[in-house]
């Protein structure tokens, strides 16, 4: 890799705003995500975290009411004009809030659905085996219908399904929401393993301490804007708390 390539971020967001009808949910966002980052996004409910991730993968451009303005570039290529299908094909994917699995389908069918794109099909079996290696429990339960599984297991399926598209960048929306602490520990171990294989990760996390522990960069959102950004070592808990609540202290 040339030194220049290091200088160009994997994902560059500039002047990004997203609207639900007339309502602006995020406001003039500028953010660079470098290859190899684990970026944690924290912020209160309604701060625009999910909207930001949805904007990156094109889900804010699908309905007739919602739309985005601004630029999103992935490896120098514009994503903001692409459909979600093409964005996923380019190597960016999202693990959605609440998992959003296909409830009537089995574990294996859910995972295989993630390898729908023609370029992924020839290698789908190999990646399925890798995912079963990462989550051995899913191999045992491959024939089970996912609606019968626990929240933690469903989160594993959701992560596995996203990995089936062999992404370079994964966005995790509310990774640990609603899961038992022991399960969350396990999920975070898996995220580290995924990251170690060279996948850049963005995680929306409610638990500030967890976010600081796992991430090499943290950004705090408030009322649709990024109000604080930096490496965990540079940021004090007080500064983050202040940014989170928007209080001047």
């Amino acid at each position, binding site marked *: 890799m040339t030194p220049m390539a290091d200088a160009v971020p994997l994902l560059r967001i500039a002047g990004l705003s997203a609207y639900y009808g007339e309502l602006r949910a995020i406001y003039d966002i500028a953010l660079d995500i470098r290859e190899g980052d684990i970026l944690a996004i924290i912020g209160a409910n309604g701060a625009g975290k999910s909207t930001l991730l949805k904007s990156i993968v094109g889900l804010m451009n699908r*309905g007739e009411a919602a739309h985005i303005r601004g630029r999103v570039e992935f490896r120098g290529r514009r994503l903001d004009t692409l*459909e*979600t299908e093409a964005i*996923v094909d380019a190597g960016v994917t*999202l693990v959605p809030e609440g998992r959003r699995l296909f409830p009537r389908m089995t574990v294996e069918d859910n995972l295989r659905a993630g390898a*729908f794109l023609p370029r992924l099909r020839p290698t789908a079996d190999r990646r399925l085996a890798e995912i079963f290696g990462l989550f051995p429990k899913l191999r045992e339960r491959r024939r089970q219908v996912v609606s019968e599984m626990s929240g933690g297991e469903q989160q594993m399926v959701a992560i596995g399904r996203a990995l089936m598209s062999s992404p370079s960048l994964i966005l995790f929306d509310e990774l640990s929401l609603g899961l038992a602490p022991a399960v969350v520990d396990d999920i975070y171990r898996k995220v580290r393993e995924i990251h170690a294989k060279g996948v850049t990760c963005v995680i929306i996390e409610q638990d500030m301490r967890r976010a600081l522990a796992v991430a090499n960069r943290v950004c705090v959102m408030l009322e649709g804007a990024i109000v604080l950004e930096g490496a965990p070592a540079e940021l004090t808990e007080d500064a983050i708390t202040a940014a989170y609540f928007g209080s001047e202290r």
Partner: protein
Amino acid sequence: MNEDLYWMFIDVANGLLSGSMLGGYYAVIAIGLALNFGVMRLVNLAHGDWLILAAYLAVAFLSMANVSPFWTLLLVVPVMYVIGYVIQRVMLNRVSVQAAERRGMSASFGLMSPLLVTFGMSIVIGQGLLAVFDSNAMAIRNELSFDAIRLGEDLTVSTLRLIFFGIALLMLALVQFFLHGTHMGRAIRAASDDPEIAALMGMNANKVYAVASGISLATAGVAGVMIGMSRSFQPFDGPTFLLIAFGVVILGGLGSMVGALVGGLILGIVQVLAGTYFGPSAQLVAGYILILFVLAVRPQGLFSR
């Protein structure tokens, strides 16, 4: 041997046998509707008219080439697939449940508007067939119509019905395999459940729905040729077959090919047995009474979970 007991046995055996054969044929008539309704949540009121259109297509093909009626499938099935694909892309995708949800409207609104669109389509197809073929009853002539295979002294089965039954099993197995064992089949189930997440899987939901509707009409093509080979038909016969298809789907439950087969078998057997014991006029009535009964006690269908 007790003579009465023997004839009772023959009546029941005959009812089960020819009822099953009829049931396979009913299942084929219903596959397309079950796919649209059960998987895509699209109620296609024009389903019966598409069946009749396919029968007319076969007649038109046979008037140009003097071959066995089974060869017409080679033309009818692909033509119906293309019609289904195009209709879904240019019309139904704009009014589907998924389109309504995407616009932020309720799913029930999305169930209503395709009803109106496909009802209109049903009228257009019927009138179109009338304009092109006039109202005389047509049939697809074939040598098998009066053939039967003797299974015993007093037990026979129609050769044509037996062939149809074989085709039915083959088609149900193929569609079931397609839905569960192929990328496109999984995509159809996924995109119907959650189009937004399907897009995250790299699926273009509108194209996926179009393929599903294409397959739905392709199966209607086979069913239409079967209808034409087993009876005479006229341009406005569509609703009769729509009712049969609905009956099968209601009895068997939504979206499962096994359900379509079971629903077809029940409807077929009940009709034939009712015909045997209460006379021909009881056939249809018994079928519909059964459907009403099932709707009253198990509206989700006998076999859906």
